């Protein structure tokens, strides 16, 4: 039969409010994490990254928090704007079998809808 796509979690926020998008990662050996933004019909776009020896990193309007104890990553967007509407993926980086930092594994994604 026809396969059904995953139902993406959706977060709706009012323009100007802060958004928090959460992600649980799977591999405790992952030592590098990235948040990507994907607008409809486009490729993933890098937002911010964090190494496993950090628990917080700030960018412009965005903050990533890492909790390795519970394998949880979050992305905070301050003063959310309509242009922030997109699907947000977390990605974990870990060594592939070849030993290099080459394998990126994406999470399911969360759809952020900004209400004007």
């Amino acid at each position, binding site marked *: 039969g026809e396969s059904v*796509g995953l139902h*993406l979690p959706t977060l709706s926020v009012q323009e100007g409010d802060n958004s928090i998008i959460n992600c649980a990662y799977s591999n405790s050996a992952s030592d590098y994490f990235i948040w990507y933004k994907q607008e409809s019909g486009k*490729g993933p776009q890098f937002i911010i990254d964090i190494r496993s020896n950090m628990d917080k990193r700030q960018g412009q309007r965005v903050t990533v928090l890492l909790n390795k104890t519970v394998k949880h990553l979050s992305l905070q967007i301050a003063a959310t704007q309509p242009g922030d509407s997109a699907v947000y993926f977390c990605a974990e980086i870990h060594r*592939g079998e070849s030993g290099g*930092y*080459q394998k*990126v594994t*994406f999470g399911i994604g969360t759809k952020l809808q900004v209400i004007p």
Partner: protein
Amino acid sequence: EPEVTQTPSHQVTQMGQEVILRCVPISNHLYFYWYRQILGQKVEFLVSFYNNEISEKSEIFDDQFSVERPDGSNFTLKIRSTKLEDSAMYFCASKRSGGAANTGELFFGEGSRLTVL
């Protein structure tokens, strides 16, 4: 701003046909990747390529798939005999460096949508 470019943007093909998706990575990048995204699902790793050889591949990347860097600028993904379930958006990505100093930042192309009928 340098970018990864992909062609075609959309390809429709009959089941069993061969398809070649093309990518031009950013010029000073050394690591190249193909990912796919089935409609409504997450982005899935297919293969990574470095120094003219495959460095990593997923279980999705079976014998029907191959990659090539024929001329130093293009990076292609070939599907020899397409199946219905190959219908997806295929993303090419490139990265400047790898190893311990890796920033991890992949630059993605806009994707090639493959529809298999």
